């Protein structure tokens, strides 16, 4: 060994490092001091204690949040003014004034005057096409999922209900729309992704000879393991350009050493789409109540997320989601009839009257333009006020920025799961209102229509919510995973900016997504 080249030196180093005895040296040069284990023991005990405290904190936090949610839910909303009128109840019918002729036909003078009148009917405020009317009638019979996709213009498309008998005693209550289409079930997934590390990860410590051809590995004498030895994989062929290793050392491939256990990539991104059922919780703070009985609705949500796994168990995630709050209700509006404003429509044989009004909705007051038609046979007093029931379908769209903290346990196999919690910031991005007139509590009023002429004035530009959920993921490969994430959101700030009552959005749903891991 007086002179040897670099390769020979390396080989000698490897052989020497791998030829240590199984038992420690008698003089103890290779035996670690005993205090190492004592300090390890103390560290492990401390870690166990920290883990117990951590789970205890989680437990009490969940209990506390559940208690808050229960308390919030148990708080009853008691508006100071009478409850909104329920559509399924009969609204009182306004009888004709005793001074009004009971039958138009009895007054021949009026009939003659009407016949010869040259009244400019002009163009009605809304032309109801037969197709629309059929659609409305069909909608009454079926459950209509009014998913607002943004393409429909709020042009006051409404239905006309022929109601010759006054209040419809048998009117049905508005039914919440059907849920959206089910998320397509995943097809049978491929077998767990193959381990991208080379097959052999056996690494021999000095003293454990792996000379091929020997029977029992002499590692057994050091471990004194009883039972058949676990068959060890054979080292792969050396990579091109790499030094040829002695086979008995079975050194692991380079990639396994450089990036072992790379199952915790630090940055990931994902796309998800989901369906949520959302409604709102009302908290009375003033003297007014929201107009109408509300029910929630199903909405679709799409989003992009970006996450950073800063710890083996913890990750922080954010992103951008497109979401909406979707609420349906039946609301009442009082219409003040002004005789001097009415115009006769010869085609429909109705007197048309128009008025602007303001209606209180889920997201504040909205300005609207009401058009009603009056049957000529049913005269009405000037400034007469009657109630109109409207079915409203409101949607407030948001851009949502979630801030989520995820905790995941040790990952084994392709299936992984985690728990998540955090807050979401919702920035308002549009409001839409659809209305369909139901009926009026006065005989002879027909052709009720309404158009939105403004936006909801109380829509808060930003709201926040608290979110809880989890995620179940299936790793298709090291870089890709499919996920299913149930989630529950509870509003922390009201949707209604400065209204007389607080309205908090409450949602629950599930998202399906695809995640990509970058490093």
């Amino acid at each position, binding site marked *: 060994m007086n002179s040897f080249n670099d390769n020979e030196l390396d080989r000698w180093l490897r052989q020497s490092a791998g030829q240590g005895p199984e038992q420690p040296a008698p003089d103890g040069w290779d035996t670690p001091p005993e205090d190492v284990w004592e300090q390890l023991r103390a560290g492990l005990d401390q870690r166990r204690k920290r883990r117990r405290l951590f789970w205890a904190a989680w437990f009490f936090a969940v209990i506390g949040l559940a208690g808050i949610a229960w308390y919030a839910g148990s708080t009853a909303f008691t508006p100071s003014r009478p409850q909104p009128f329920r559509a399924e109840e009969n609204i009182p019918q306004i009888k004709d004034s005793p001074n009004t002729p009971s039958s138009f036909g009895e007054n021949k003078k009026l009939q003659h005057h009407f016949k010869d009148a040259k009244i400019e009917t002009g163009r009605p405020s809304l032309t109801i096409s037969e197709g629309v009317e059929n659609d409305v009638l069909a909608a009454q019979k079926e459950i209509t999922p009014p998913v607002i996709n943004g393409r429909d213009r709020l042009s006051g498309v409404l239905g006309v209900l022929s109601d010759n008998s006054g209040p419809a005693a048998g009117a049905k209550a508005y039914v919440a729309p059907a849920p959206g289409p089910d998320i397509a079930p995943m097809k049978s997934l491929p077998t767990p992704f193959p381990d991208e590390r080379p097959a052999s990860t056996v690494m021999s*410590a000095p003293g454990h000879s792996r000379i091929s051809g020997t029977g029992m590995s002499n590692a057994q004498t050091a471990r004194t393991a009883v039972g058949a030895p676990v068959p060890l994989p054979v080292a792969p062929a050396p990579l091109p350009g790499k030094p040829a290793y002695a086979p008995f050392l079975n050194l692991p491939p380079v990639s*396994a050493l450089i990036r072992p256990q790379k199952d915790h990539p630090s940055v990931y991104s994902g796309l998800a789409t989901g369906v949520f059922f959302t409604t709102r919780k009302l908290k009375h703070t003033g003297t007014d109540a929201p107009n109408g009985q509300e029910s929630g609705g199903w909405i679709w949500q799409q989003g992009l997320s970006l996450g950073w796994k800063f710890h083996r168990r913890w990750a922080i995630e954010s992103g951008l989601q497109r979401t909406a709050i979707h609420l349906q209700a039946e609301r009442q509006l009082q219409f003040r009839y002004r005789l001097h404003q009415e115009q006769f429509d010869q085609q429909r044989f109705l007197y048309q009257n128009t008025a602007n009004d303001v209606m209180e909705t889920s997201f504040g007051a909205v300005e609207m333009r009401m058009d009603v038609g009056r049957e000529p046979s049913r005269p009405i007093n000037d400034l007469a006020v009657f109630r109109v029931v409207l079915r409203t379908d409101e949607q407030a769209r948001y851009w949502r920025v979630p801030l989520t903290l995820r905790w995941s346990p040790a990952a084994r196999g392709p299936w992984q799961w985690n728990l998540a919690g955090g807050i979401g910031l919702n920035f308002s991005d549009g409001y839409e209102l659809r209305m369909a007139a139901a009926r009026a509590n006065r005989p002879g009023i027909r052709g009720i229509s309404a158009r939105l002429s403004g936006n909801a004035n109380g829509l808060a530009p930003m709201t926040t919510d608290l979110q809880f959920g989890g995620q179940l993921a299936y790793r298709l490969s090291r870089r890709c995973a499919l996920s299913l994430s149930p989630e529950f959101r509870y509003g922390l700030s009201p949707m209604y900016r400065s209204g007389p009552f607080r309205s908090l959005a409450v949602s629950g749903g599930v998202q399906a997504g695809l995640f990509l891991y970058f490093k």
Partner: protein
Amino acid sequence: MHEPTDIQLVQGAQRGDARCEEALYRRFSVPMFRVCLRYAANRDEARDMLQEGFMRVFADLGDYRGEGSLEGWIRRVVIRAALRWLRKRRAFEPADLLPEISGDEADDPADNWNETGDLRLVTTLLQQLPPGYRTVLNLYAIEGHSHEEIAALLGISVGTSRSQLSKARAMLKKMLKHELIQR
């Protein structure tokens, strides 16, 4: 009473069984200490590396999937812990800051050296190298890393890795020659 297998010890330690944790330590402490001795300059440093390494082993035991031998997995964790320990102490200085090898230094006999096996000789000789040389030589010659991988692991340049390896070999050859002459 039969000894538990590696998998049984791992499962017990994952559940937090203190006896399994100690058995796991006892089973692999000697081989891992030998590894640490090659990366350290003395027993004290090796002890610190071993302690940090096993703390890491117990913390990451959930990541062990049973693929490959447990000893190999523990060895990788311990080596990473040793490298972190060295990085914390800024051991990987640029090559030009390290002392040049002189013939007089090569003549100094290693401490605690005797003829008991090449392992001890290798360990003793490696401990005499500067930390940067020692680490690069360990990673290249014994563990089989490439210079690019060593550079990524240690946060140095590829050129520094090559330079330190070359100087480490030269220094080791001189020390080895001196030992052989003394024999």
